[in-house]
């Protein structure tokens, strides 16, 4: 019985419609929280006693880095579901997520370099954290290139899914790199167990920005997923009723 419900939910017309209905619930909160987080991070938070105002880069760097990894995780989980249970919608989610994750990996690397110059005195070092994050960008590029190079949709889905899943080993390496190796990059500001190593008036804008970026990812993913569903549909009568009303 639950499988009937599940297959109905995963069917293209349903997924397309539900994605459209969910969109405003992600897009509006994301926009509002972005505005709040920007004011908080740029104007309300006090300057750091060591780094001065340069520390404010954290408010775009950390959310970008967070998304670079969590989007990869989302993509790999979706790819695994598509591979194991042969659910095409899951492959569509994986395909939709890749370019978004790649863009935030670029943001994390670029803002990291800009932050590195005034605080470390260099744009780039081959430190474990930076190197593994660069490998993450190559993994995204590889997954997208592999998908683009295979004409047959099902084979492209499967091949890119395998690569995405294999690349997951890089995620713990990125996360623990600052603990495993004695690196230039500082450890996480936020950890699950310990108290955050940041004062409250600096911390709240960061939490707001992390939530805003996450919701933003949700919104963009839904739009890209809708595009993927339309591209993958063939001979479907529902398209006409759905698209012309």
């Amino acid at each position, binding site marked *: 019985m639950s499988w009937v419900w599940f297959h109905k939910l995963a069917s293209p017309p349903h997924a397309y419609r539900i994605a459209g209905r969910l969109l405003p619930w992600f897009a509006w909160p994301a926009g509002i929280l*972005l505005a709040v987080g*920007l004011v908080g991070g*740029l*104007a309300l938070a006090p*300057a750091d006693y060591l780094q*001065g*105002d*340069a520390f*404010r*880069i954290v408010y*775009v*760097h950390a959310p*970008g880095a967070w998304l670079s990894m969590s989007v990869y995780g989302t993509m790999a989980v979706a790819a695994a579901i598509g591979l194991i249970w042969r659910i095409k919608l899951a492959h569509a989610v994986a395909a939709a997520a890749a*370019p*978004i994750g790649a*863009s*935030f990996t*670029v*943001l994390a690397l*670029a*803002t990291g370099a*800009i*932050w590195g*110059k*005034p605080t470390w005195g260099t744009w780039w070092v081959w430190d474990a954290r930076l190197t593994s994050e660069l490998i993450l960008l190559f993994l995204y590029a590889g997954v997208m290139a592999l998908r683009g190079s295979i004409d047959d949709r099902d084979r492209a889905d499967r091949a890119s899914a395998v690569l995405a899943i294999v690349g997951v080993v890089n995620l713990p390496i990125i996360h623990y790199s600052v603990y495993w190796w004695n690196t230039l990059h500082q450890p996480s500001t936020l950890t699950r167990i310990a108290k955050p190593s940041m004062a409250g008036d600096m911390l709240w804008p960061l939490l707001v920005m992390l939530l805003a970026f996450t919701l*933003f990812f949700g919104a*963009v993913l839904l*739009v*890209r997923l*809708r*595009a*993927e569903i*339309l*591209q993958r*549909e*063939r*001979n*479907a*009568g529902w*398209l*006409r009723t759905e*698209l*012309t009303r």
Partner: protein
Amino acid sequence: MSEFLRMGGYAAFVWSSFGLAAAVLLWNVVSARRLHAAARARALRRDAAGQGTP
């Protein structure tokens, strides 16, 4: 105001970072919407051409 824009001497670093973030967010919105609009137009054309033959 100019004190705010100066960012304690780190203006170039802070504003270029936030500008880059804005560019990435904007690219995501524009590219996703373009992709959806194009896929929608193609689907409608396909439908008009012959009841769904690709």
